[in-house]
């Protein structure tokens, strides 16, 4: 039943990976522009994930543990970036931080530039990636029985100790998984990034540019390396977070 789906994923990707010639791939790697774009993609995606982790973890905990008025609305807002067309996200960020907006001018005065900068790219990537992180980690927190936290308190551990000795060790795999999803989403973002920052160029933008300017063959070489890096990154993270076998 699922075979067509598997083919749909394997064939285009396989074709993409197998088509470029080895010499082309190697020469692509020697290009400074390509290396920079790949590095930028990786760096901004990881930076966005770090931001999502710092600010998203407490949010995920509150969403999993507390009931309050308007919780459903906040849940909806967290999911919203998943549904909005990507260029719309770019336009929204542009209208908020653009050079003509109040916020944009204020930031400009203190020397922070959003449009056409790495900062801007990271903000966009946080926007599109954070929902994946928050939702995954929230599910993790929900799977930790409150009773375990209560039991820890009754044994003398305060709230902070309880979090680090009970909640976190149970939920950390969800945190890694959430980070993987967030990075994955961020590294693949194109539509929103291209509106906020065509330059400095990330890998997807470079691939698009090479496709429109030089054609399929040139874009494929960059795409190959982007896919390879992503694959390596995710396999490593998965291995690292493999469930420990319990005797």
């Amino acid at each position, binding site marked *: 039943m699922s075979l067509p789906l598997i083919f749909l994923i394997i064939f285009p990707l396989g074709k993409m990976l197998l088509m470029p010639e080895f010499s082309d791939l190697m020469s692509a790697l020697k290009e400074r522009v390509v290396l920079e774009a790949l590095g930028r993609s990786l760096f901004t995606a990881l930076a966005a994930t770090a931001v999502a982790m710092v600010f998203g973890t407490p949010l995920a905990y509150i969403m999993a543990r507390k009931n309050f008025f308007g919780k459903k609305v906040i849940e909806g807002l967290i999911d919203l970036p998943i549904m909005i067309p990507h260029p719309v996200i770019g336009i929204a960020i542009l209208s908020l931080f653009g050079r003509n907006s109040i916020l944009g001018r204020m930031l400009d005065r203190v020397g922070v530039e959003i449009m056409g900068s790495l900062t801007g790219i990271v903000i966009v990537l946080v926007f599109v990636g954070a929902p994946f992180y928050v939702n995954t980690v929230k599910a993790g927190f929900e799977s930790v*029985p409150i*009773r*375990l936290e*209560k*039991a*820890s*308190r*009754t*044994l*003398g*551990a*305060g709230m902070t*100790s309880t979090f680090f*000795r*009970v909640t976190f*060790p*149970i939920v950390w795999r969800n945190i890694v998984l959430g980070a993987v999803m967030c990075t994955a989403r961020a590294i693949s973002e194109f539509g929103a990034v291209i509106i906020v920052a065509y330059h400095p160029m990330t890998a997807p933008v470079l691939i698009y540019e090479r496709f429109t300017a030089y054609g399929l063959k040139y874009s494929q070489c960059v795409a190959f390396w982007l896919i390879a890096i992503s694959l390596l990154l995710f396999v490593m993270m998965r291995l690292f977070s493999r469930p420990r076998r*319990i*005797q």
Partner: protein
Amino acid sequence: MIEVNDLTIHLPGFSLKSANLKVEDHDFFALIGPTGSGKSLLLEAIMGLLPVDRGTIRLNGRDITATPPEERGLGIVYQDYALFPHLDVKANILFGVRYHAIPEKESQERFRFLVDTMNLGHLLTRHPVTLSGGEKQRVALSRALILNPGVLLLDEPLSALDPMLQDDLKNLLKSLHQELGTTFVMVSHDFSDVLFLANRGAIIHKGEIKQAGTIQELFEQPGSPFAAQFVGMKNVFSITPCNGSAVTLNGLDIQLDHPVTGHDHLALRPEEIVCDPNGSASGANRFAGTIKKLVNRGFYYDVFIRVQEVEFMAQWTRREIVKNRLEPGTETRIAIPRNSLHTF
């Protein structure tokens, strides 16, 4: 010593109403009531895991109503044990030691004592998912007891175990209580467990404490129809006192061994009703009646006997049923000893 005064908790769909309770040092105190009566709620409130709407909780004279659970110096063992799944048995037991000022040597001694007493030596490196219910229970007990809590709270410790393990655990709890001298407060819905373990207790029903006292008092002198039913007095009737120690039960004259004043209920254990086909019992109320129903309970029978307008329930052995050829419709005679009749 724990003192609970006027404790009130409102939750959606349930409330605990103005509970008063006193647990003395070294007591094995039982909070007894059917499922959903609020006894676990009371336990969680004492532990500090539930916000309290009104009232106070004192531990050895100190008001701990607003104290966070980690500073109360109490221990709790949950019904589902709540062991930490990511830690092995040893780490589970030692979890709380670092938060208490226990000298290294003493904590090691306690650890060894508990591991020996609970027979956990061969399980120390195992994780909770691989343990049986009884093993988990013993780990949870050790984890709480190693901290030498002022009071150990036990939430239905027996209900999740099979009958064989229940007996083992009952003996273990009893000997731990005697050896350690720790005050125990146990929640239970089974009065027979309570009879074996506890020395004092309170009966709780629909969020209200109905009666408190020694287990003997609760067992012999229940103060309400509910309490009477709960401690096994299956026959509970409304009565009209006549004169002195005689009462009328729906037209039936019954003699008691004590005078009744102001009492309007009569209660009687089913096992106190004697099967007396020859009418030979003396010093008792004797009646002729008809067997309405026999219910086979394995080792004994529930026997429902109609005497005029009153239906009694008796519990007789299989042997008696066979010997007297009892079956529905049989006319027989019963005797009710005067000293087995309880009024309130």
